[in-house]
Each structure stands twice: as C-alpha cells, then as structure tokens.
C-alpha cells in the first residue's frame, strides 16, 4: 500500500521514465518541475506550447530542452487537443497541465472520450498527504462537474475507488459530504449519499465502504457528538475518500492545503491514461511530487481501466 509521497517518489524513480506531454510550460515553476522530474528519472517530457515563451523559461531555469520533443503551438485549445490526442493514441502515458486553464484540458479529454465511445465521464481527484496520517486522503470531484447529479457522482466515486485500489488500499472508506444539518430542510446531496450507499451495497464500486457520516462533524464527532476539546480530534477518523457535493466546495476544500501542512496531488483518470492537474499557483516541488504520483499510478493502471 502506498502511504506517503516518500513511497511515491521512490517508486516513481523505479517505474519511470514515462512519456509525459506538458501543456504550456511557460511558467518558471512548471518548467523547473519538469526539469527536476526529468533529472530524477520520472519522465521524458514532450513540451507543447509557445516556442518563444517555452525557450525563455527553460533558459531562466537553466534547463536544456533541445533534445526533447517539442510541439510549437500558441492556441490554448489546440494545445489541449494535441495533448489529449497523444494520450488517447498512446504516444504518451501522462498529460500534464502547465500554465493553461483546466477548462481547455477537460474539454479536450471529454471530446476524446466521446470519440473513443468509452462513455466515461471524467472527474478530478485531489489526494492529500497529511503528515500525522500515514495514508492518503482524497477529495473528489474537485475540478470538472459543476453540480453533479447522482449519476455523475456514481462515476466520480468509481474513479476514486479505482485509484485507491491501484494505490493498494483494498477497501477504501468513502464519506459523501453534504450540508445536511439540524436546520435547512431536505438536502439533495444527502439524498445522493443515501442512493450511493445502495449502489455500493450492490457491489458496483468494487470493494469500498460508504460511511454513514455526511459531514466532517459527523466523521469526527458522530451524529450526536460534541467537540469538547481539540485534543480529542483524531485525524485517523478521516476516510480515504471525501466525495464533495459540488465543484465550488471541492475546489475550495482541496486547496485549503494553503492553510495546512499537507501536500496535494490532483489528477484525472481518463480511459486511456492519466492527466496531472496541478494548480497554476503551485510551486515546482509540489508539481514534481504530483508528476511522481502520476508516474506511479500510470504504471499501475496499465491494462486496467476504471469503469
């Protein structure tokens, strides 16, 4: 079972290099992450973006990109489309976002899934490494579905459970987060939690456990509990997977790592490979760790496709 980023980094060295398409590497932090990932043997990059910007940034971080495959293109949607095509045609195993808004990438992946007739919906899984917790925790969907309905959430849970199985977690626990509380009336997200529980019971998600708890308060205190002291909080109560009710919530929660001593890795599992989704505000070490995570997951994904 892969528990920490140290585990991931060790494995990425063994399992790399993987061919990775980088979309718009025209930010020094991104280029530096590519440089470090290449030096560490994780990846063999294919750089796609504006030639002038790419070369300037490579110079700035003292990275000789002359011997890598490069595709010069300025239009962002075309860049995203090229990356997705390479992923779906098996030319690269991983695609990574650079300094490009994610909407271009999602659009291109959705289009490729549709062309491939996979019927697969995509979602973003944001893994957290929390130092006091000797395993990963994930928020999902943190990037694609604005207001997912129950059907969309089924696909989101499947991908997350699939990812945890790949990482060696035999029975990940899932909490379907909801704003259901003592006031406010019925909640769609709570209704979805109940429906997802029945799907899990039928075995559609594979081995996993959907918890009764639908809020962090429920998770840490139980439904009738009260917080007497912060020293009573046991971080080990966090389930492996936190399914968020909507995009705003997911994105806000997963990026609170800015307040915390945690490291985040965000990725998309497409039917043909992985897409690394760092934030455009992340720094090189964090981006490099996210690349390493994708290398390890990509290696385990060979031949296995999430339902």
């Amino acid at each position, binding site marked *: 079972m892969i528990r920490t980023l140290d585990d991931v980094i060790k494995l990425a060295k063994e399992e790399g290099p993987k061919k990775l398409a980088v979309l718009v590497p025209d930010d020094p*932090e991104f280029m530096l992450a590519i440089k470090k990932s290449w030096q560490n043997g994780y990846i063999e990059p294919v750089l796609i973006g504006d030639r002038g910007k790419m070369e300037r940034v490579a110079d700035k971080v003292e990275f000789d990109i002359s011997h890598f495959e490069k595709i010069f293109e300025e239009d962002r949607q075309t860049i995203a489309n090229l990356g997705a095509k390479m992923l779906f045609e098996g030319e690269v195993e991983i695609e990574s976002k650079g300094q490009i808004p994610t909407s271009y990438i999602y659009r291109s992946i959705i289009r490729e899934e549709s062309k491939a007739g996979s019927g697969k919906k995509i979602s973003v899984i944001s893994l957290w490494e929390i130092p006091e917790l000797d395993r990963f925790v994930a928020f999902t969907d943190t990037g694609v579905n604005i207001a997912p309905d129950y059907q969309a959430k089924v696909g989101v849970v499947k991908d997350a459970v699939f990812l945890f199985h790949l990482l060696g977690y035999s029975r990940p626990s899932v909490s379907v987060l909801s704003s259901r509380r003592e006031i406010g*009336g019925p909640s769609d997200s709570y209704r979805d939690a109940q429906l997802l529980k029945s799907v899990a019971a039928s075995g559609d998600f594979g081995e996993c456990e959907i918890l009764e708890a639908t809020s962090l*308060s429920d998770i840490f205190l139980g439904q009738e509990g009260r917080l007497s002291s912060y020293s009573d909080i046991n*971080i080990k109560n966090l389930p492996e997977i936190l399914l968020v009710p909507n*995009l705003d*919530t997911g*994105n806000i929660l997963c990026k609170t790592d800015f307040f915390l001593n945690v490291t985040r890795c965000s990725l998309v599992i497409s039917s043909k490979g992985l897409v690394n989704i760092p934030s455009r*505000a992340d720094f090189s070490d964090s981006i490099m760790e996210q690349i390493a995570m994708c290398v390890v997951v990509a290696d385990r994904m060979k031949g296995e496709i999430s339902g």
Partner: protein
Amino acid sequence: MALNFAEILTDAQKRGRKRLVLAPAREERFIEVISEAVIASIVTPIFVGDGKVIEKLLKGTSISSGNYEIIDVPDYQKAVSTAINMIKENRGDILMQGAVPHQFFVDAIQDRENGLLRGSLTSFVSLFEMPQRDRLAMVTDSYVNNFPTLAEKKMIVENAVRLANVLGIRSPKIAALAAIEQVNPAIPSTLDAAVLSKMSGRKQFGDVTIEGPLDIDCAVSEMAAARKGVDSVVTGNVDIYLAPDIEAGYSLSQLFVFVSRMPMAGVLMGTSRPVILDMPFVSTDNKLTEVAMAVLLCDRGG
C-alpha cells in the same frame, strides 16, 4: 482591533456585565459555560426553564453564590418564546440557545412577528483564530442559508461586515469564493462573486473591498494570485471568506476546525439582539468567546 479570542474577552470585560438569558436551561454543559462567563465578569445569567431542574443544575456551582435569576417555564418551547419576549422587552440582553432542537430555535428567532430578526435574513459567521495570520478571519454563511441568492448574499456580506466593524476591522477585505478566479457563465457562484465585487467597487457596502470570484489559493496567497494574474488588496489579506453556498460554507468551517484545528467561535448575525447558537463543532473552550462576542454585539445587535 481584537486580534484573537483573548482580546475579544478582554474587550468584553470592559463593557460591564450583560444579562444573558439561557433558554431552555436544562443541561449541565451550558451552566459550565455560563459559570466561566460569570467568573470572567461579563454576564449576569437568567435561566428560563423548569425551576426545579435549574436549581439542581446550579447546586454547587460558582453561580449559585452570586447573582442570577430563574424564570420557571417548564415547557421548553414556551421557555424559548418567554426568553425571546424578555429580550424584546429589554429584560435581557443576550439570548443563548439551550438544549432545544435547532430548527425550532432558529424558526423562533426568524419569526417575522415574534422573533428577533433585525432585517429579513440571519446568517452565521464562523470566526477563526488563524495561526498563519496574526488576526481573526471569518467564514460565512456557514450554517443558516442553503443556497443564497445574490440579494441574500448581499445581506450575508452586510451582516459579516457589521461583525467585522464590532471587532474593530474598519475596512474589511472580503474574498467572494468560487471554484475558479475567472468569471464563467456556467458557474453561477462566479457571477454572484463578480457582481458583489463590482458593488463594492461602487462603494455600495461602504468602506469594504470585495474581490471575486477568487479561488481559495488566490484568496489566501498574494503570490498565488499574482501567478494567476489577480491583483487585489484582498489577496493574502482576507478578513471574510464569503462562501458560495452552504455546501462550501458548512464544510469549509468544519475543515478548519477538524483538520486545521483552528479555534472557532460561531456568531449568528442579522438579529436585533445578540443570539448564541449551540453548535456541536464549537469546542467547549471557545464557547466563552461566543458569549464575549455577544457582549460586544450588545450595543449593535447581531
């Protein structure tokens, strides 16, 4: 300006004791909080509920030897309405929720005729001591409103600004949060955030700066914002995080409590007089801050 919970308590101690009405008074844990508030010289308690039960609860506590009042109303629903009337008639200053279902209590507060509404909307502010920032920060609405409209978000902002002003934050900076920092017609929260931001630019909230939409990394980090091309006095210096909806507000507050372990006190705003809700995820240590905050709000309402 109060920079932390200790300073809120110190400020409250300068105001003299306020009359705190607990309704219904029927559980020990409330008595413990009120004992602390009495010892801190910020309140004189009035207990509304079953008189015999209250006498029993007070026996042996520090309250029993000091000033207090018991209003004997055994029925818990009547106890709440009696307490609300007392506040309305100025026979009490602060209403504290006792052991009573939240929906019943909030409905009673929000009753347009008999409740304690200040305007037309109450909202909940989660007030945090943030270790990364040597001052207080708020998340709102984190409990009351489900999916507020733009007009309701405007009121939620006004409520939070009133609280900020009471805390001595004169020009509050507000991050209208959304999933992304760009305005995207497909993501309604980004539209609301952009409009609120524009309204603040036109000084429709007074001396307040709202920036939005902001994703949380831009809100928290000036450097992250710069890398995404967002230039604002708000980034990296947020006093109030405006949640796009209850799903985000409720979860974010709890994440700060349970995962970040940031001390939190809750404040109900939009009431004519201060009201303290009984939130399960506010730790016992921080309940005293809620009482102190209510004392500070006494001159301004909630």
